[in-house]
């Protein structure tokens, strides 16, 4: 069993979330005595992920763990892996409807989906935000760019939760920052100039939240504006300590990686595997940021 090799293909390689996921995967690999490779593209994009996946298939790993960069678009490329006899497990994101092995849909072939639910995370952010701002006021989502499934889903969850449960909260237009913290900061400042009573921002990823936090700081509105971040790399956690960011919705990427490898190993050794493994979220805020058992949810850098 030493020669079992699994390749983990993240949504993008330059993101603390996936780097942490890889750490979890390596931990599982060490525990099992197998190999896990990490190969991905530089941006969260199907056109870039597909050639990487093709080359991974050519290497012929025993299984592929992948965070597909689009639920529809990655079906065909992943089918090639499946047709080459390589079991596929999706992590963090899914293809088709995310329900595998139920005989329905084009993308039914992956064995399992291991993830925290980004829509759910978005909802959680909305609930926390609503609490912080007292159930009323103006908020908006600072997002990367349209078309990234994970961040789109967080926004979707956030908007849905607000719409369904918090009628007194007005959600303004989403602002796209191209992953540029500087632009995200300037956008916050513009929103603020227009809406001096802005109550909160939901930063759908690291740079969105960093930028919004910086905008808030420069406006001297740290106490008035709530900033919620999605994902919990060290820089966000530092910002929570300093009060710039009020809370972060931490996924558990290491768990995702760990259970992903375990599931693949189980499948490769003839065990049965659940078609869906949910990992949770942890909300990190000023109250618990110093706690010891929170440290393990901070993404590695």
């Amino acid at each position: 069993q030493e020669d079992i090799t699994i390749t983990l293909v993240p949504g993008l390689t330059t993101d603390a979330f996936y780097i942490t996921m890889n750490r979890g995967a390596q931990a599982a690999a060490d525990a099992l005595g197998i190999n896990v490779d990490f190969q991905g593209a530089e941006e969260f994009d199907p056109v870039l992920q597909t050639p990487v996946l093709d080359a991974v298939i050519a290497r012929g790993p025993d299984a592929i763990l992948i965070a597909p960069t689009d639920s529809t678009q990655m079906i065909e490329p992943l089918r090639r892996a499946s047709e080459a006899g390589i079991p596929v497990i999706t992590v963090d994101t899914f293809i088709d409807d995310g329900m595998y092995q139920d005989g329905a849909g084009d993308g039914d072939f992956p064995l399992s989906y291991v993830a925290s639910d980004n829509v759910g995370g978005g909802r959680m952010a909305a609930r926390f935000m609503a609490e912080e701002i007292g159930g009323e006021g103006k908020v908006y989502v600072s997002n990367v760019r349209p078309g990234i499934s994970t961040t789109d889903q967080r926004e979707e969850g956030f908007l849905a939760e607000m719409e369904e449960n918090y009628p007194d909260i007005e959600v303004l237009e989403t602002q796209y920052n191209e992953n540029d913290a500087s632009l995200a900061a300037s956008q916050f400042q513009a929103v603020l100039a227009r809406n001096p009573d802005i109550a909160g921002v939901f930063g759908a990823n690291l740079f969105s939240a960093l930028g919004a936090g910086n905008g808030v700081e420069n406006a001297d509105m740290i106490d008035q504006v709530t900033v919620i971040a999605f994902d919990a790399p060290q820089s966000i956690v530092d910002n929570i300590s300093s009060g710039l960011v009020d809370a972060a919705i931490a996924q558990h990427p290491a768990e995702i990686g760990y259970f992903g490898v375990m599931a693949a190993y189980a499948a490769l050794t003839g065990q049965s595997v659940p078609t869906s493994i949910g990992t949770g979220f942890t909300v990190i805020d000023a109250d618990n940021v110093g706690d010891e058992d929170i440290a393990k949810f901070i993404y590695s850098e």
Partner: protein
Amino acid sequence: MSMSTTKRNGGASFLRSLLNAWSWLFLILILAFFEIYAQTQTGSTFLFRVYNLQSISVAASQILLLALGLTLVIVAGHIDLSIAFSTGFAAVAMALVVRAAGDDPGLAMVLLALIVGLLAAGIVGVVNGWLVAHLDVPSFIGTLGTYGIARGAALIVAGGATVSIRSDTVRSFGNGEIWLFPIPVVIAAVLAIGCHYLLAHTRFGAHTYALGANRASVERAGVDVKRHLMLLFIISALTAGIGGLIYTGRFSAGAANAGEPILLYAVAAVFIGGASLTGGQGTISGTVIGAFIIAVIQFGLVFSGLPPYWQFVAVGLVIIVAVLVDQSKHRVTGDRS
């Protein structure tokens, strides 16, 4: 790879035409490197597997479809950034028509969708051409503007997200094979031959080269330069648009961002292929080699298991070395001083 002049002028000396092959040689060298690596490290073959060749060619095709028309534009001394989103605009437009036609529409509807997709890209090309040719807007700025506009337009019509479709016809258009050749590769090859013919063998091509060297020469020779520029930008938008159609076929979805991540690779392919910022040189065959060099190293580096960040370094190095090899050729023929 910038021996475009020699190429163009055909009757080059034997020495020169031999040296012309250096870019091919470099490509072959990379392939040989990966083959040896595969043989020694994994005991398998890199090169002699249909699957690998297919994957590499499909990746190269997607780059090429943006790079082909772009080569013409760059040879003429201009640039077209908007192709990044002409691709997406065409992809989304096509997907919307297919979707509107309901589940698994017939061939006629798919053809209509292809035409609508092409038209969408064509509009971007017409606007670019009009800006550059008639309003004298520098192409960098003009096409950066239409880049934003096409992007917004694609997102607006798509409603922000990707437009996913279900159609076996469309899917096989993007993923089918003709004998061993994936359809995207066949289409890119046909277009490459067409663009090569246009650039190397027609009056249009000769005017494009002349335009890049000295606009006045072409104008004074009595060529309608405005019309010529219009056509160049339309061709560029259309080849990029075809890239978008293939995208929709491959991924069963039209995404507004479809072309953006490959823009830089496409531009790189053109320049690796011997074009220059100032215009007047470059060839389609050079661009094809450029696209393949990029596709091969990207595939090969993942295949060889190099850690991802080292891949960035390696790709950067190979791009530089590719051009250095080309430079040393100039030294041998004494083209410079």
